[in-house]
């Protein structure tokens, strides 16, 4: 008993540590324990760290905005250029630049400027010429900018139209891809020598609802395809393993706007003697036990 309790405590600490849910003090204590050779804790920790890694797969994927690619590329470019030796600031360069033939003085790093006593005619006109050139360039740039901006606005409008059409085609393509995946999963079960099919019929509350469970007995997996009324907000469908003694949750079954739901569900090793499959409508997040009338049900033959 004492050993079991100690093992449970180690598992608890390892699980909490892997999740990052221990306090700093407790985490340091656990680290010391592992470092001092507690192999049991080490083994438990290694296994739980793998679980935590896998939890990352639970969030639905989201496409990041396209502009982030450019921002990242710029950042990485800057990272690659950083090891290059920094160029000395302009003020230091001027202080050591030799104006005469004598060797430069290396002791100073001040920003003292060397003044010329006489100015040539070229140098008198040069600033004015530069200013005039700058004004001409600015005017040209502004005109070019305006023209480019108008063209950009027109292009953006076209892009928006094309994007809408592309989104439509993308949705259709994705639906087809999803359907291909579903059929592949079902075919896989049907090719297995030891498989069963459970057909679920609509019950009184949803007479047109239906579902099929393709049960791969050897791999202990249910492939479930359902057509149900769209779930109202705040509600979700839940699948059940029905045994003579209990109804055990087999997970949530979310449906799309058309009421179609698809899921691949592992059948736990300790769930035996399944007599039927059923689907109910539960509050979002599911329920430990069914709280609503059954929408579809089918018996295992």
């Amino acid at each position: 008993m004492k050993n079991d309790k100690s093992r449970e405590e180690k598992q608890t600490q390892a699980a909490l540590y892997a999740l990052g849910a221990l306090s700093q003090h407790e985490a340091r204590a656990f680290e010391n324990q592992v470092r001092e050779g507690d192999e049991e804790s080490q083994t438990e920790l290694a296994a739980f760290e793998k679980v935590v890694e896998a939890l990352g797969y639970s969030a639905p994927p989201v496409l990041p905005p396209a502009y982030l690619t450019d921002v990242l590329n710029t950042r990485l470019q800057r990272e690659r250029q950083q090891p290059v030796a920094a160029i000395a600031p302009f003020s230091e360069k001027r202080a050591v630049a030799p104006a005469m033939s004598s060797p430069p003085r290396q002791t100073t790093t001040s920003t003292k400027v060397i003044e010329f006593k006489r100015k040539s005619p070229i140098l008198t006109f040069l600033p004015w010429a530069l200013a005039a050139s700058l004004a001409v360039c600015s005017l040209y740039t502004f005109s070019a900018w305006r023209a480019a901006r108008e063209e950009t606005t027109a292009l953006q409008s076209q892009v928006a139209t094309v994007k809408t059409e592309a989104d439509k085609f993308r949705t259709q393509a994705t639906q087809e891809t999803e359907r291909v995946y579903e059929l592949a999963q079902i075919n896989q079960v049907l090719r297995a020598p030891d498989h069963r099919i459970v057909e679920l019929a609509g019950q009184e509350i949803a007479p047109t609802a239906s579902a099929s469970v393709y049960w791969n007995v050897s791999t202990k997996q249910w492939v479930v395809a359902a057509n149900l009324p769209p779930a109202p907000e705040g509600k979700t469908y839940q699948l059940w393993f029905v045994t003579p003694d209990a109804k055990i949750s087999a997970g949530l079954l979310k449906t799309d706007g058309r009421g179609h739901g698809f899921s691949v569900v592992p059948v736990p090793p300790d769930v035996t003697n399944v007599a039927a499959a059923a689907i109910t409508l539960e509050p979002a997040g599911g329920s430990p036990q069914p709280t609503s009338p059954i929408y579809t049900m089918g018996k295992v033959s």
Partner: protein
Amino acid sequence: MPLKTVETQAQDQHLMSLIQRATTGDQSAFAALYEATSKVVFGLVLRIVPERATAEEVLLDVYTQAWRQANNYDSSRGSPLAWLMTIARSRAIDRLRSSRQDQNKETIDDASTLVSSSISPEEASVISERQRLVRSALDMLVPEQREVLELAYYAGLSHTEIAAKTGHPLGTVKTRTRLGMMKMREMLSPILSGQI
């Protein structure tokens, strides 16, 4: 071996070779790694840090860190995507905790909403076998166990913070964490053993 398993392993090999090339400074290889993985990573970041602009910053930080530390990736410890997601979760939780301190705002409720197992048509084309298995496994947990795991994983709460938030005794929180993680360990054995 199921078709999807072969595809998943081939994807891992491909990502490993991109990381290897990135260690030599090959930015195009790293760009390909970003293209192949950013949807999944961004999904995880957004799940933890719901504020979009902040999540985008975190995503940039994740890949910048991955670029700098590509030499540290060890294939014996996990898949490339798992490595990226570990960095992502760490960065996202740090940002979440930092914003909680700065703003003294209760963001826990935003971060800890239950994981949906729904798969939209848009997601279906990129969902791998691993993702489906993990989502199914989470749905199989009793709600109380799922709740504590999500508060720890997505909201970055300690066990005492979870106890305070849920109103349950600390011992109960610890037990539910242990049982939930043990159950997940059992149900995710195909992933943990490297079969998929």
